[in-house]
């Protein structure tokens, strides 16, 4: 039989294999990077109806987180403040600022401000704010340096792997109970954090659930 395939055909399988290998690698890396919450969620910064600045209120003016998010220590759900909370100050301060238009409108109509939600756990995940902030887990651990944000954005992926990072080794994140709402607090060194965290974990008897039922109830 004569040669049906030309000589260069000998290299076709090898070339195809090479292309397949490159494509597979690129595809895997692409999915790894672009399809995970690290990419899809972190940095989400929607426009809000009122340009509320945490940098101004929490950092410059030194307001406590709990002034507005008043139920965070006692409730599973951490509340977004109602218009009355804003107006407690703003009926006196900067009451004519155009930036407060949405707050004013809400105050007059009695309808709440439609804040855009940023951090959203799926409905099959049960997360309790009170359980965390009362046991040395700072706002900072999940929401990042929110006291420096002029507009709030998502700082952490909040994926399941990310939750488990802390649930598997809470000593890396626990801080003194007095510093939970101090977002500028940092341990002296990683070693100091680990020593302190280990001590808190023991003293407070912290056993974060690792079973499915811990969060998926």
């Amino acid at each position, binding site marked *: 039989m004569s040669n*049906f*395939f030309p000589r260069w055909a*000998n290299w076709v399988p090898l070339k195809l294999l090479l292309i397949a290998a490159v494509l597979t690698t690129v595809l895997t890396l692409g999915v790894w990077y672009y399809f995970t919450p690290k990419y899809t969620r972190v940095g989400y910064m929607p426009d809000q109806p009122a340009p509320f600045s945490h940098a101004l209120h929490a950092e410059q003016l030194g307001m406590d987180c709990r002034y507005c998010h008043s139920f965070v220590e006692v409730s599973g759900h951490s509340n977004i403040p109602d218009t009355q909370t804003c107006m407690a100050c703003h009926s006196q301060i900067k009451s004519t600022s155009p930036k407060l238009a949405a707050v004013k409108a809400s105050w007059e109509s009695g309808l709440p401000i439609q804040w855009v939600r940023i951090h959203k756990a799926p409905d099959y995940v049960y997360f309790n704010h009170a359980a965390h902030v009362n046991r040395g887990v700072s706002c900072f651990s999940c929401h990042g340096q929110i006291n420096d944000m002029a507009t709030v954005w998502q700082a952490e*992926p909040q*994926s*399941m*792997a*990310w*939750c488990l*990072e802390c649930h598997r080794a809470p000593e890396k994140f626990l801080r003194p109970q007095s510093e939970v709402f101090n977002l500028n607090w940092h341990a002296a060194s990683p070693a100091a954090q680990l020593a302190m965290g280990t001590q808190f974990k023991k003293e407070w008897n912290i056993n974060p659930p690792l079973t499915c039922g811990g969060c998926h109830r």
Partner: protein
Amino acid sequence: MSEGTAVMDASSAAAKRIERAPLVTNNRTMSWISDRVASCTERRAPTWWWITFTLTSSLAVVSLLCIAYLISTGVGVWGLNHPIGWAWDITNFVFWIGIGHAGTLISAILYLARQKWRTSINRAAEAMTLFAVVCAGIFPMIHVGRIWMVWFLAPVPTSMGIWQNFRSPLLWDVFAVSTYFTVSILFWYTGLVPDLATLRDRATTKIRKFFYGIGALGWRGGNRQWKHYEMAYLILAGLSTPLVLSVHSVVSFDFATSVIPGWHTTIFPPYFVAGAIFGGFAMVLTIMLPARAIFGLHDLITDDHVDKMCKIILLTGSMVGYAYAMEFFIAWYGGNLFEQYAFINRATGPYWWAYWSMIFCNVVSPQLFWFRRMRRHVLPVFIVCMFVNAGMWFERFVIIVTSLHRDFLPSSWNMFYPTWVDIWTFTGTFGIFLTLFLLFIRWLPMICIFEVKAVLPEADPHYHGHHKATIEGGGH
């Protein structure tokens, strides 16, 4: 053996061996074998092929439509209920995966055991294995309900930060079945390469030359290529051999590692493997007998081949019968009331008809094969094989549904009634299976041409002249 009487030397001793029936009858030549097998793919598709293909592919479409309906609506379209959370879905899975085992046994174990009669049936049996695994793979995939989550079974790093439960037999199943499919397809393809080269060399059209040329991977039949081929095939046979035993053992762990009375038994792995080989050989005969008749391959797949397969069916069928009896014995001997109830309920409860159908089909009907006459007539062989096919489906149904339908809480006791979706999804998988098989016999040589040539007397290096006595003894 007149010449063996003179001196009792080596050759005359060989001549005294019991004469074996030739594996290829009617003194067919090598070119006849090539012609006969290759022409099945070269002639125009006969009318019967188109009619059958239309029927089976329509049936396959019905199955696919049922699956689409299931996925779009939810598993509620099946008759599953509480406590019967597994019924036809897993029955069908085990049924199909079991059928594949004959192919692996023929291709791997019989190869390593130098059973030359495997050569004319291994190709089709291996193809059948692949198609059966395709049908089997559908059911665990679709029974999870949210099929788009099925990738959770794959151990890849995810943003969930957890691995699969490696202690679960359901995960072992995923590995067992996917390994089985991969090794089977490699084995099958490796064996196909020299024959694809034959088809390429015989090809008259450009398209055939092109596609068979690609498939043949540049095979030229040189000495070195044959050496590599033989080694590769031997290694693959070695890899496949443990799979014959492991795959269905792992499938049986799905049940045996649970605590359900009727499932929680140590006899399951060997019993499942014997049952799988039993059902597999029945399915091989079910499709090989019509194929042999249609393509006139009686000289290659002889009555001796059928006879041997019937003996394996008789052996494994009796092993399965022994296992059924032993289950009852252990239920009594173990003294566990729940276990005893489960088995008495199987035989006399509301599913008695399924149990006794299973006993009749799997244990009673193969006993006909004790008689040589029965093994050598196509009709009784075919009828028994059909019984075995049905019986093996009933076996899995009995194991799964009768064990589940009587829960530990009598208030949960229930019956299973299949819906039309259950019925047509299963019926349709026969369409998928047969469609793939019809495509196979149309495009690929259904008998391993070069291996069959190797069992001809002419293939013996001593055929032409030397050691004449050995040849006349015919002991090859």
